[in-house]
Protein backbone atom coordinates (compact mmCIF):
# COMPACT_ATOMS: atom_id res chain seq x y z
CA UNK A 1 0.00 0.00 0.00
CA UNK A 2 2.76 2.41 0.99
CA UNK A 3 4.66 1.71 -2.20
CA UNK A 4 1.57 2.17 -4.30
CA UNK A 5 1.00 5.52 -2.66
CA UNK A 6 4.53 6.61 -3.40
CA UNK A 7 4.39 5.79 -7.07
CA UNK A 8 1.04 7.44 -7.34
CA UNK A 9 2.45 10.53 -5.66
CA UNK A 10 5.30 10.74 -8.16
CA UNK A 11 3.00 10.34 -11.09
CA UNK A 12 0.81 13.12 -9.86
CA UNK A 13 3.71 15.44 -9.21
CA UNK A 14 4.90 14.94 -12.73
CA UNK A 15 1.59 15.82 -14.26
CA UNK A 16 0.87 18.71 -11.92
CA UNK A 17 2.15 21.21 -14.48
CA UNK A 18 -0.37 20.56 -17.25
CA UNK A 19 -3.46 20.56 -15.10
CA UNK A 20 -4.60 23.98 -16.17
CA UNK A 21 -6.92 22.61 -18.89
CA UNK A 22 -9.93 21.33 -16.98
CA UNK A 23 -12.29 19.03 -18.81
CA UNK A 24 -15.11 19.55 -16.35
CA UNK A 25 -15.28 22.50 -14.04
CA UNK A 26 -17.88 23.01 -11.33
CA UNK A 27 -18.23 26.72 -10.87
CA UNK A 28 -19.84 27.61 -7.55
CA UNK A 29 -22.30 24.86 -8.41
CA UNK A 30 -25.22 24.00 -6.18
CA UNK A 31 -28.22 21.71 -6.32
CA UNK A 32 -31.42 22.03 -4.38
CA UNK A 33 -34.67 20.16 -4.53
CA UNK A 34 -37.89 22.03 -3.88
CA UNK A 35 -40.32 20.43 -1.47
CA UNK A 36 -42.90 18.05 -2.93
CA UNK A 37 -45.68 19.70 -0.96
CA UNK A 38 -46.05 23.37 -0.13
CA UNK A 39 -44.65 24.03 3.31
CA UNK A 40 -42.02 21.29 3.06
CA UNK A 41 -38.34 21.95 3.43
CA UNK A 42 -36.02 22.67 0.52
CA UNK A 43 -33.33 20.01 0.32
CA UNK A 44 -29.90 21.38 -0.46
CA UNK A 45 -28.06 18.48 -2.02
CA UNK A 46 -24.97 20.44 -3.01
CA UNK A 47 -23.80 23.94 -2.27
CA UNK A 48 -20.98 26.10 -3.55
CA UNK A 49 -18.96 23.42 -5.29
CA UNK A 50 -15.78 24.57 -7.01
CA UNK A 51 -13.94 21.67 -8.54
CA UNK A 52 -11.95 20.93 -11.67
CA UNK A 53 -11.48 17.56 -13.30
CA UNK A 54 -8.59 17.16 -15.71
CA UNK A 55 -8.72 15.23 -18.95
CA UNK A 56 -7.22 11.72 -18.98
CA UNK A 57 -7.51 11.58 -15.20
CA UNK A 58 -9.65 9.74 -12.74
CA UNK A 59 -11.31 11.76 -10.04
CA UNK A 60 -12.60 9.67 -7.16
CA UNK A 61 -15.48 11.20 -5.30
CA UNK A 62 -15.95 9.83 -1.80
CA UNK A 63 -18.23 10.67 1.06
CA UNK A 64 -20.94 9.13 3.19
CA UNK A 65 -24.46 8.74 1.88
CA UNK A 66 -26.43 11.94 1.35
CA UNK A 67 -23.21 13.84 0.78
CA UNK A 68 -24.34 14.90 -2.71
CA UNK A 69 -22.04 12.64 -4.74
CA UNK A 70 -24.76 11.26 -6.94
CA UNK A 71 -26.41 14.66 -7.40
CA UNK A 72 -23.02 15.90 -8.59
CA UNK A 73 -22.77 13.25 -11.30
CA UNK A 74 -26.34 13.52 -12.41
CA UNK A 75 -25.96 17.25 -12.81
CA UNK A 76 -23.14 16.92 -15.34
CA UNK A 77 -25.32 15.13 -17.92
CA UNK A 78 -28.46 16.91 -16.72
CA UNK A 79 -30.15 13.70 -15.68
CA UNK A 80 -31.39 15.63 -12.67
CA UNK A 81 -33.61 17.55 -15.07
CA UNK A 82 -35.95 14.56 -14.95
CA UNK A 83 -36.62 15.43 -11.32
CA UNK A 84 -39.45 17.96 -11.33
CA UNK A 85 -38.21 19.81 -8.24
CA UNK A 86 -34.58 20.10 -9.25
CA UNK A 87 -33.05 23.60 -9.08
CA UNK A 88 -29.41 24.11 -10.10
CA UNK A 89 -27.25 27.07 -9.10
CA UNK A 90 -23.93 28.25 -10.48
CA UNK A 91 -22.83 26.25 -13.48
CA UNK A 92 -20.81 23.35 -14.79
CA UNK A 93 -18.41 23.96 -17.65
CA UNK A 94 -17.40 21.19 -20.02
CA UNK A 95 -14.45 22.29 -22.17
CA UNK A 96 -15.33 25.80 -21.05
CA UNK A 97 -18.90 25.61 -22.32
CA UNK A 98 -21.63 26.06 -19.70
CA UNK A 99 -24.05 23.17 -19.22
CA UNK A 100 -26.83 25.17 -17.60
CA UNK A 101 -26.35 28.81 -18.68
CA UNK A 102 -26.72 28.27 -22.41
CA UNK A 103 -30.36 27.99 -23.34
CA UNK A 104 -30.00 26.07 -26.58
CA UNK A 105 -27.84 23.22 -25.34
CA UNK A 106 -28.59 19.86 -26.97
CA UNK A 107 -29.18 17.66 -23.95
CA UNK A 108 -29.04 14.39 -25.87
CA UNK A 109 -25.65 15.41 -27.30
CA UNK A 110 -24.52 16.37 -23.79
CA UNK A 111 -25.53 12.96 -22.49
CA UNK A 112 -23.60 11.27 -25.25
CA UNK A 113 -20.57 13.38 -24.42
CA UNK A 114 -20.79 12.64 -20.70
CA UNK A 115 -21.69 8.96 -20.46
CA UNK A 116 -22.93 7.47 -17.23
CA UNK A 117 -22.67 4.08 -15.57
CA UNK A 118 -25.13 3.42 -12.76
CA UNK A 119 -24.75 1.60 -9.47
CA UNK A 120 -26.96 -1.26 -10.55
CA UNK A 121 -26.03 -2.57 -13.98
CA UNK A 122 -29.11 -1.65 -15.96
CA UNK A 123 -29.47 -3.89 -18.98
CA UNK A 124 -31.78 -2.75 -21.73
CA UNK A 125 -34.17 -5.58 -22.66
CA UNK A 126 -32.31 -6.11 -25.93
CA UNK A 127 -29.51 -8.30 -27.22
CA UNK A 128 -25.91 -7.71 -26.18
CA UNK A 129 -25.24 -6.19 -29.60
CA UNK A 130 -28.27 -3.93 -29.50
CA UNK A 131 -27.44 -2.76 -25.98
CA UNK A 132 -24.15 -1.40 -27.28
CA UNK A 133 -25.59 -0.13 -30.57
CA UNK A 134 -28.44 1.67 -28.78
CA UNK A 135 -26.59 4.95 -28.22
CA UNK A 136 -24.97 5.16 -31.66
CA UNK A 137 -28.28 4.31 -33.34
CA UNK A 138 -30.01 7.11 -31.46
CA UNK A 139 -27.24 9.41 -32.63
CA UNK A 140 -28.23 8.51 -36.19
CA UNK A 141 -25.66 5.84 -36.99
CA UNK A 142 -27.45 3.08 -38.85
CA UNK A 143 -24.67 1.64 -40.97
CA UNK A 144 -24.13 -2.00 -40.12
CA UNK A 145 -20.35 -2.13 -40.73
CA UNK A 146 -19.78 0.98 -38.67
CA UNK A 147 -21.98 -0.32 -35.84
CA UNK A 148 -20.25 -3.71 -35.94
CA UNK A 149 -16.93 -2.00 -35.55
CA UNK A 150 -18.17 0.26 -32.76
CA UNK A 151 -19.67 -2.64 -30.85
CA UNK A 152 -16.51 -4.68 -31.13
CA UNK A 153 -14.17 -1.89 -30.11
CA UNK A 154 -16.40 -0.81 -27.22
CA UNK A 155 -16.63 -4.36 -25.88
CA UNK A 156 -12.88 -4.78 -26.26
CA UNK A 157 -12.15 -1.53 -24.46
CA UNK A 158 -14.42 -2.62 -21.63
CA UNK A 159 -12.61 -5.99 -21.45
CA UNK A 160 -15.72 -8.03 -22.02
CA UNK A 161 -15.31 -8.89 -25.74
CA UNK A 162 -13.71 -12.27 -25.20
CA UNK A 163 -16.57 -13.37 -22.96
CA UNK A 164 -19.42 -12.31 -25.24
CA UNK A 165 -18.08 -12.31 -28.81
CA UNK A 166 -19.77 -15.62 -29.65
CA UNK A 167 -23.19 -14.62 -28.41
CA UNK A 168 -23.67 -11.00 -29.38
CA UNK A 169 -27.25 -11.68 -30.48
CA UNK A 170 -28.35 -13.35 -27.26
CA UNK A 171 -30.17 -11.26 -24.67
CA UNK A 172 -27.95 -9.17 -22.45
CA UNK A 173 -29.99 -10.39 -19.50
CA UNK A 174 -28.09 -13.69 -19.75
CA UNK A 175 -24.86 -12.05 -18.55
CA UNK A 176 -23.55 -12.17 -14.99
CA UNK A 177 -23.51 -9.09 -12.76
CA UNK A 178 -19.88 -8.23 -13.43
CA UNK A 179 -20.26 -8.77 -17.16
CA UNK A 180 -23.36 -6.62 -17.16
CA UNK A 181 -21.54 -3.74 -15.57
CA UNK A 182 -18.72 -4.00 -18.11
CA UNK A 183 -21.39 -4.13 -20.80
CA UNK A 184 -22.75 -0.88 -19.36
CA UNK A 185 -19.28 0.62 -19.60
CA UNK A 186 -19.01 -0.61 -23.19
CA UNK A 187 -22.41 0.91 -23.89
CA UNK A 188 -21.09 4.26 -22.75
CA UNK A 189 -17.84 3.86 -24.72
CA UNK A 190 -19.75 3.15 -27.94
CA UNK A 191 -21.05 6.72 -27.85
CA UNK A 192 -17.47 7.95 -28.06
CA UNK A 193 -17.85 10.16 -24.99
CA UNK A 194 -15.28 12.58 -23.56
CA UNK A 195 -16.29 11.99 -19.98
CA UNK A 196 -17.26 8.79 -18.22
CA UNK A 197 -19.11 9.08 -14.96
CA UNK A 198 -19.60 6.08 -12.75
CA UNK A 199 -21.94 6.09 -9.80
CA UNK A 200 -20.73 3.43 -7.37
CA UNK A 201 -20.25 1.00 -10.27
CA UNK A 202 -19.05 -1.87 -8.11
CA UNK A 203 -21.40 -1.58 -5.16
CA UNK A 204 -23.45 -4.54 -6.37
CA UNK A 205 -20.49 -6.66 -7.49
CA UNK A 206 -18.24 -9.30 -5.99
CA UNK A 207 -14.50 -8.60 -5.40
CA UNK A 208 -13.35 -10.36 -8.58
CA UNK A 209 -15.72 -8.39 -10.79
CA UNK A 210 -14.79 -5.25 -8.88
CA UNK A 211 -11.11 -5.81 -9.62
CA UNK A 212 -11.91 -6.23 -13.31
CA UNK A 213 -13.89 -2.99 -13.41
CA UNK A 214 -11.07 -1.16 -11.67
CA UNK A 215 -8.56 -2.52 -14.19
CA UNK A 216 -10.84 -1.41 -16.97
CA UNK A 217 -11.06 2.10 -15.54
CA UNK A 218 -7.32 2.46 -15.17
CA UNK A 219 -6.86 1.35 -18.77
CA UNK A 220 -9.54 3.74 -19.98
CA UNK A 221 -8.10 6.78 -18.32
CA UNK A 222 -5.54 7.24 -21.09
CA UNK A 223 -8.42 8.31 -23.34
CA UNK A 224 -11.13 9.76 -21.13
CA UNK A 225 -11.88 12.01 -18.24
CA UNK A 226 -13.35 9.74 -15.58
CA UNK A 227 -15.35 10.68 -12.50
CA UNK A 228 -15.81 7.76 -10.15
CA UNK A 229 -18.24 8.10 -7.29
CA UNK A 230 -17.56 5.39 -4.78
CA UNK A 231 -18.55 4.32 -1.30
CA UNK A 232 -15.43 2.24 -1.15
CA UNK A 233 -12.61 4.39 0.19
CA UNK A 234 -9.97 1.85 -0.75
CA UNK A 235 -11.24 1.83 -4.30
CA UNK A 236 -10.80 5.58 -4.44
CA UNK A 237 -7.23 5.15 -3.27
CA UNK A 238 -6.51 2.41 -5.79
CA UNK A 239 -7.98 4.06 -8.85
CA UNK A 240 -8.13 7.83 -8.46
CA UNK A 241 -5.51 10.35 -9.50
CA UNK A 242 -7.36 12.94 -7.53
CA UNK A 243 -9.85 12.44 -4.75
CA UNK A 244 -12.63 14.73 -3.61
CA UNK A 245 -14.28 14.27 -0.25
CA UNK A 246 -17.88 15.40 0.09
CA UNK A 247 -19.88 15.77 3.25
CA UNK A 248 -23.44 17.05 3.62
CA UNK A 249 -23.44 18.58 0.15
CA UNK A 250 -20.18 20.40 0.57
CA UNK A 251 -16.77 19.74 -0.92
CA UNK A 252 -14.56 19.33 2.13
CA UNK A 253 -11.29 18.55 0.47
CA UNK A 254 -9.95 17.92 -3.01
CA UNK A 255 -6.37 17.00 -3.75
CA UNK A 256 -4.08 14.37 -5.18
CA UNK A 257 -5.23 10.98 -4.02
CA UNK A 258 -1.91 10.34 -2.31
CA UNK A 259 -2.19 13.53 -0.31
CA UNK A 260 -5.77 12.88 0.72
CA UNK A 261 -4.84 9.45 1.96
CA UNK A 262 -1.58 10.35 3.66
CA UNK A 263 -1.84 13.92 4.84
CA UNK A 264 -5.42 15.14 4.66
CA UNK A 265 -5.80 18.76 5.67
CA UNK A 266 -9.23 18.43 7.14
CA UNK A 267 -9.95 16.38 10.22
CA UNK A 268 -13.29 15.20 8.81
CA UNK A 269 -11.53 13.76 5.76
CA UNK A 270 -9.15 11.88 7.98
CA UNK A 271 -11.97 10.57 10.13
CA UNK A 272 -13.85 9.39 7.08
CA UNK A 273 -10.99 7.66 5.29
CA UNK A 274 -9.84 5.96 8.44
CA UNK A 275 -13.34 4.66 8.95
CA UNK A 276 -14.29 6.60 12.04
CA UNK A 277 -17.65 7.42 10.45
CA UNK A 278 -19.45 6.90 7.18
Amino acid at each position, binding site marked *: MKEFMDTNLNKNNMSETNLSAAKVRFDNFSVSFLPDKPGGAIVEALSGINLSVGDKKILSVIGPSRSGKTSLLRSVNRLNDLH*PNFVPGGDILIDGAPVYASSNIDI*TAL*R*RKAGMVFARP*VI*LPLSIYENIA*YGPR*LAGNNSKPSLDELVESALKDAYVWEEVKDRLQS*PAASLSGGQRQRLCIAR*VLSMRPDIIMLDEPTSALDPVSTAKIEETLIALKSKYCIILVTNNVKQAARVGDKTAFFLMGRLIEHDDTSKIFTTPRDERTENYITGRFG
Partner: protein
Amino acid sequence: MNSRTEEKIAVNILRLAALSAIAVLLFVIIYVAYKGAGSLTMTFIFENPRDMGREGGIFSAIVSTFYLAALSSMIATPLGVGTAIYLCEYTTESAVTKIVRFGSDCLAGVPSIIFGLFGFVLFVIYLKLGWCLLSGALTMTFMILPTIIRTSEEAIKSVSYELREASYSLGATRWQTITKIVLPQAVPGIITGVILGVGRSISETAAVIFTAGSALATPESILESGRTLAVHFYIIAREGISMERAFATALVLIIFILLINIITYALMNKFIAGKKT
Protein backbone atom coordinates in the same frame (compact mmCIF):
# COMPACT_ATOMS: atom_id res chain seq x y z
CA MET B 1 -62.36 -20.90 19.54
CA ASN B 2 -58.63 -21.48 19.37
CA SER B 3 -56.55 -20.04 16.60
CA ARG B 4 -56.03 -23.37 14.86
CA THR B 5 -59.70 -24.11 14.29
CA GLU B 6 -60.15 -20.48 13.31
CA GLU B 7 -57.45 -20.94 10.68
CA LYS B 8 -59.08 -24.13 9.40
CA ILE B 9 -62.50 -22.52 9.11
CA ALA B 10 -61.06 -19.49 7.34
CA VAL B 11 -59.18 -21.61 4.79
CA ASN B 12 -62.27 -23.67 4.05
CA ILE B 13 -64.48 -20.63 3.61
CA LEU B 14 -61.95 -19.08 1.23
CA ARG B 15 -61.67 -22.35 -0.65
CA LEU B 16 -65.43 -22.47 -1.01
CA ALA B 17 -65.48 -18.89 -2.33
CA ALA B 18 -62.85 -19.73 -4.94
CA LEU B 19 -64.65 -22.93 -5.91
CA SER B 20 -68.00 -21.20 -6.33
CA ALA B 21 -66.54 -18.83 -8.93
CA ILE B 22 -65.20 -21.73 -10.98
CA ALA B 23 -68.40 -23.70 -10.44
CA VAL B 24 -70.57 -20.90 -11.83
CA LEU B 25 -68.33 -20.58 -14.89
CA LEU B 26 -68.41 -24.31 -15.51
CA PHE B 27 -72.14 -24.46 -15.01
CA VAL B 28 -72.76 -21.66 -17.52
CA ILE B 29 -70.48 -23.20 -20.14
CA ILE B 30 -71.82 -26.72 -19.69
CA TYR B 31 -75.46 -25.61 -19.64
CA VAL B 32 -75.07 -23.45 -22.76
CA ALA B 33 -73.15 -26.22 -24.52
CA TYR B 34 -75.79 -28.78 -23.56
CA LYS B 35 -78.65 -26.62 -24.78
CA GLY B 36 -76.95 -25.25 -27.87
CA ALA B 37 -74.78 -28.05 -29.20
CA GLY B 38 -77.74 -29.74 -30.90
CA SER B 39 -78.32 -26.84 -33.31
CA LEU B 40 -74.66 -26.02 -33.82
CA THR B 41 -73.77 -27.26 -37.29
CA MET B 42 -71.58 -25.98 -40.10
CA THR B 43 -74.62 -24.67 -41.98
CA PHE B 44 -75.70 -22.83 -38.83
CA ILE B 45 -72.39 -21.00 -38.80
CA PHE B 46 -72.10 -20.31 -42.53
CA GLU B 47 -75.69 -19.49 -43.48
CA ASN B 48 -77.52 -16.24 -43.00
CA PRO B 49 -80.56 -16.24 -40.74
CA ARG B 50 -83.97 -16.68 -42.40
CA ASP B 51 -87.45 -15.99 -41.07
CA MET B 52 -86.18 -13.69 -38.26
CA GLY B 53 -83.76 -16.36 -37.07
CA ARG B 54 -86.16 -19.28 -36.91
CA GLU B 55 -84.36 -20.87 -39.85
CA GLY B 56 -80.86 -20.61 -41.30
CA GLY B 57 -77.75 -19.68 -39.41
CA ILE B 58 -75.86 -16.77 -37.89
CA PHE B 59 -73.24 -15.91 -40.50
CA SER B 60 -74.25 -12.25 -40.79
CA ALA B 61 -74.15 -11.91 -37.01
CA ILE B 62 -70.62 -13.30 -36.90
CA VAL B 63 -69.54 -10.79 -39.54
CA SER B 64 -71.18 -7.90 -37.67
CA THR B 65 -69.58 -8.99 -34.40
CA PHE B 66 -66.18 -9.13 -36.05
CA TYR B 67 -66.60 -5.66 -37.57
CA LEU B 68 -67.76 -4.13 -34.32
CA ALA B 69 -65.04 -5.66 -32.15
CA ALA B 70 -62.24 -4.97 -34.63
CA LEU B 71 -63.35 -1.43 -35.30
CA SER B 72 -63.88 -0.42 -31.68
CA SER B 73 -60.57 -1.88 -30.50
CA MET B 74 -58.76 -0.30 -33.44
CA ILE B 75 -60.06 3.11 -32.42
CA ALA B 76 -59.84 2.61 -28.66
CA THR B 77 -56.32 1.14 -28.51
CA PRO B 78 -54.39 4.14 -29.86
CA LEU B 79 -56.58 6.52 -27.86
CA GLY B 80 -56.23 4.53 -24.66
CA VAL B 81 -52.53 3.77 -24.96
CA GLY B 82 -51.90 7.39 -25.95
CA THR B 83 -53.73 8.62 -22.87
CA ALA B 84 -51.81 6.19 -20.68
CA ILE B 85 -48.46 7.29 -22.14
CA TYR B 86 -49.37 10.92 -21.61
CA LEU B 87 -50.44 10.32 -18.02
CA CYS B 88 -47.38 8.22 -17.14
CA GLU B 89 -44.59 9.81 -19.08
CA TYR B 90 -45.42 13.39 -19.90
CA THR B 91 -47.12 14.70 -16.80
CA THR B 92 -46.20 14.77 -13.19
CA GLU B 93 -48.88 13.85 -10.71
CA SER B 94 -51.11 16.92 -10.65
CA ALA B 95 -54.73 18.02 -10.56
CA VAL B 96 -54.97 17.42 -14.30
CA THR B 97 -53.82 13.80 -14.16
CA LYS B 98 -56.11 13.17 -11.21
CA ILE B 99 -59.08 14.58 -13.11
CA VAL B 100 -58.29 12.53 -16.23
CA ARG B 101 -57.90 9.37 -14.15
CA PHE B 102 -61.01 10.02 -12.10
CA GLY B 103 -62.93 10.77 -15.28
CA SER B 104 -61.85 7.56 -16.89
CA ASP B 105 -62.82 5.60 -13.77
CA CYS B 106 -66.25 7.24 -13.81
CA LEU B 107 -66.57 6.35 -17.49
CA ALA B 108 -65.94 2.73 -16.55
CA GLY B 109 -68.83 2.82 -14.10
CA VAL B 110 -71.45 4.30 -16.45
CA PRO B 111 -74.14 1.71 -17.29
CA SER B 112 -73.98 0.51 -20.88
CA ILE B 113 -77.57 1.55 -21.62
CA ILE B 114 -76.55 5.16 -20.98
CA PHE B 115 -73.68 4.79 -23.41
CA GLY B 116 -76.23 3.41 -25.85
CA LEU B 117 -78.46 6.44 -25.41
CA PHE B 118 -75.50 8.79 -25.71
CA GLY B 119 -74.26 7.02 -28.85
CA PHE B 120 -77.76 7.09 -30.29
CA VAL B 121 -78.13 10.82 -29.74
CA LEU B 122 -74.60 11.77 -30.83
CA PHE B 123 -73.74 9.40 -33.68
CA VAL B 124 -77.06 8.12 -34.97
CA ILE B 125 -79.09 11.34 -34.75
CA TYR B 126 -76.81 14.35 -34.43
CA LEU B 127 -73.95 13.21 -36.68
CA LYS B 128 -76.53 11.55 -38.98
CA LEU B 129 -74.58 8.30 -39.20
CA GLY B 130 -77.80 6.38 -38.65
CA TRP B 131 -77.92 2.89 -37.15
CA CYS B 132 -74.68 1.44 -38.37
CA LEU B 133 -71.65 -0.53 -37.25
CA LEU B 134 -69.58 2.67 -37.17
CA SER B 135 -71.96 4.29 -34.68
CA GLY B 136 -71.88 1.10 -32.62
CA ALA B 137 -68.10 0.86 -32.75
CA LEU B 138 -67.63 4.49 -31.74
CA THR B 139 -69.99 3.98 -28.81
CA MET B 140 -68.14 0.82 -27.79
CA THR B 141 -64.88 2.74 -28.06
CA PHE B 142 -65.97 4.97 -25.20
CA MET B 143 -67.04 1.98 -23.19
CA ILE B 144 -63.79 0.07 -23.49
CA LEU B 145 -61.52 3.11 -23.31
CA PRO B 146 -61.27 3.19 -19.49
CA THR B 147 -60.21 -0.46 -19.35
CA ILE B 148 -57.50 0.09 -21.95
CA ILE B 149 -56.30 3.29 -20.28
CA ARG B 150 -56.08 1.70 -16.85
CA THR B 151 -54.39 -1.54 -17.89
CA SER B 152 -51.96 0.29 -20.19
CA GLU B 153 -51.15 2.73 -17.44
CA GLU B 154 -50.37 -0.09 -15.03
CA ALA B 155 -48.28 -1.84 -17.69
CA ILE B 156 -46.31 1.31 -18.49
CA LYS B 157 -45.80 2.15 -14.82
CA SER B 158 -44.44 -1.32 -14.12
CA VAL B 159 -41.48 -0.71 -16.46
CA SER B 160 -38.65 0.17 -14.11
CA TYR B 161 -37.50 3.76 -13.83
CA GLU B 162 -33.90 2.60 -14.05
CA LEU B 163 -34.46 1.44 -17.61
CA ARG B 164 -35.76 4.85 -18.57
CA GLU B 165 -32.83 6.57 -16.90
CA ALA B 166 -30.37 4.30 -18.66
CA SER B 167 -32.03 5.13 -21.96
CA TYR B 168 -31.98 8.88 -21.28
CA SER B 169 -28.35 8.71 -20.22
CA LEU B 170 -27.52 7.17 -23.60
CA GLY B 171 -28.87 10.22 -25.38
CA ALA B 172 -32.44 9.09 -25.98
CA THR B 173 -35.29 11.57 -25.99
CA ARG B 174 -38.45 10.88 -24.05
CA TRP B 175 -40.27 9.66 -27.15
CA GLN B 176 -37.39 7.40 -28.21
CA THR B 177 -37.30 5.94 -24.73
CA ILE B 178 -41.04 5.29 -24.83
CA THR B 179 -41.06 3.66 -28.25
CA LYS B 180 -37.84 1.67 -27.96
CA ILE B 181 -37.80 0.63 -24.32
CA VAL B 182 -41.00 1.31 -22.41
CA LEU B 183 -43.70 0.21 -24.86
CA PRO B 184 -42.07 -3.10 -25.89
CA GLN B 185 -41.83 -3.96 -22.20
CA ALA B 186 -45.42 -2.93 -21.56
CA VAL B 187 -46.96 -4.74 -24.55
CA PRO B 188 -48.19 -7.84 -22.68
CA GLY B 189 -50.08 -5.68 -20.17
CA ILE B 190 -51.49 -3.46 -22.88
CA ILE B 191 -52.70 -6.48 -24.86
CA THR B 192 -54.50 -7.76 -21.78
CA GLY B 193 -56.44 -4.51 -21.64
CA VAL B 194 -57.27 -4.63 -25.35
CA ILE B 195 -58.52 -8.22 -25.02
CA LEU B 196 -60.74 -7.27 -22.13
CA GLY B 197 -62.08 -4.49 -24.33
CA VAL B 198 -62.67 -6.82 -27.28
CA GLY B 199 -64.50 -9.22 -24.98
CA ARG B 200 -66.68 -6.43 -23.74
CA SER B 201 -67.58 -5.18 -27.21
CA ILE B 202 -68.36 -8.71 -28.38
CA SER B 203 -70.75 -9.35 -25.52
CA GLU B 204 -72.42 -5.94 -25.27
CA THR B 205 -76.11 -5.76 -26.21
CA ALA B 206 -77.90 -2.66 -24.88
CA ALA B 207 -75.51 -0.06 -26.24
CA VAL B 208 -75.18 -1.89 -29.54
CA ILE B 209 -78.92 -2.22 -30.24
CA PHE B 210 -79.25 1.54 -29.75
CA THR B 211 -76.42 2.42 -32.10
CA ALA B 212 -75.66 -0.38 -34.55
CA GLY B 213 -79.24 -1.50 -34.86
CA SER B 214 -80.25 -5.10 -35.45
CA ALA B 215 -80.44 -5.62 -39.21
CA LEU B 216 -80.25 -9.27 -40.15
CA ALA B 217 -78.47 -8.90 -43.48
CA THR B 218 -74.69 -9.29 -43.76
CA PRO B 219 -73.24 -5.77 -43.52
CA GLU B 220 -71.22 -4.82 -46.58
CA SER B 221 -69.67 -1.74 -45.06
CA ILE B 222 -69.29 -0.19 -41.63
CA LEU B 223 -71.94 2.32 -42.58
CA GLU B 224 -74.62 -0.36 -42.62
CA SER B 225 -76.55 -1.65 -39.69
CA GLY B 226 -75.66 -5.07 -38.35
CA ARG B 227 -76.75 -7.46 -35.64
CA THR B 228 -73.98 -8.84 -33.45
CA LEU B 229 -74.10 -12.32 -31.93
CA ALA B 230 -75.01 -11.00 -28.51
CA VAL B 231 -77.83 -8.87 -29.93
CA HIS B 232 -79.06 -11.76 -32.06
CA PHE B 233 -79.12 -14.00 -29.02
CA TYR B 234 -80.97 -11.38 -27.00
CA ILE B 235 -83.60 -10.78 -29.65
CA ILE B 236 -84.41 -14.38 -30.58
CA ALA B 237 -84.46 -15.44 -26.94
CA ARG B 238 -86.51 -12.47 -25.74
CA GLU B 239 -89.04 -12.69 -28.51
CA GLY B 240 -89.28 -16.44 -28.12
CA ILE B 241 -88.29 -17.02 -31.73
CA SER B 242 -86.14 -20.05 -31.09
CA MET B 243 -84.57 -20.98 -27.76
CA GLU B 244 -82.42 -23.69 -29.35
CA ARG B 245 -80.92 -21.30 -31.84
CA ALA B 246 -80.44 -18.71 -29.11
CA PHE B 247 -78.37 -21.19 -27.11
CA ALA B 248 -76.42 -22.25 -30.19
CA THR B 249 -75.62 -18.57 -30.80
CA ALA B 250 -74.57 -18.18 -27.19
CA LEU B 251 -72.33 -21.20 -27.55
CA VAL B 252 -70.61 -19.65 -30.58
CA LEU B 253 -70.17 -16.43 -28.59
CA ILE B 254 -68.58 -18.26 -25.68
CA ILE B 255 -66.31 -20.25 -27.97
CA PHE B 256 -65.18 -17.03 -29.66
CA ILE B 257 -64.33 -15.39 -26.38
CA LEU B 258 -62.48 -18.49 -25.17
CA LEU B 259 -60.55 -18.68 -28.46
CA ILE B 260 -59.55 -15.03 -28.30
CA ASN B 261 -58.32 -15.48 -24.74
CA ILE B 262 -56.39 -18.65 -25.49
CA ILE B 263 -54.77 -17.28 -28.65
CA THR B 264 -53.70 -14.02 -27.07
CA TYR B 265 -52.30 -15.70 -24.00
CA ALA B 266 -50.36 -18.07 -26.21
CA LEU B 267 -49.06 -15.18 -28.32
CA MET B 268 -48.22 -13.21 -25.22
CA ASN B 269 -46.27 -16.07 -23.68
CA LYS B 270 -44.39 -16.48 -26.93
CA PHE B 271 -43.69 -12.76 -26.97
CA ILE B 272 -42.45 -12.75 -23.38
CA ALA B 273 -40.36 -15.85 -23.98
CA GLY B 274 -38.89 -14.22 -27.09
CA LYS B 275 -37.88 -11.26 -24.97
CA LYS B 276 -36.07 -13.45 -22.49
CA THR B 277 -34.19 -16.00 -24.52
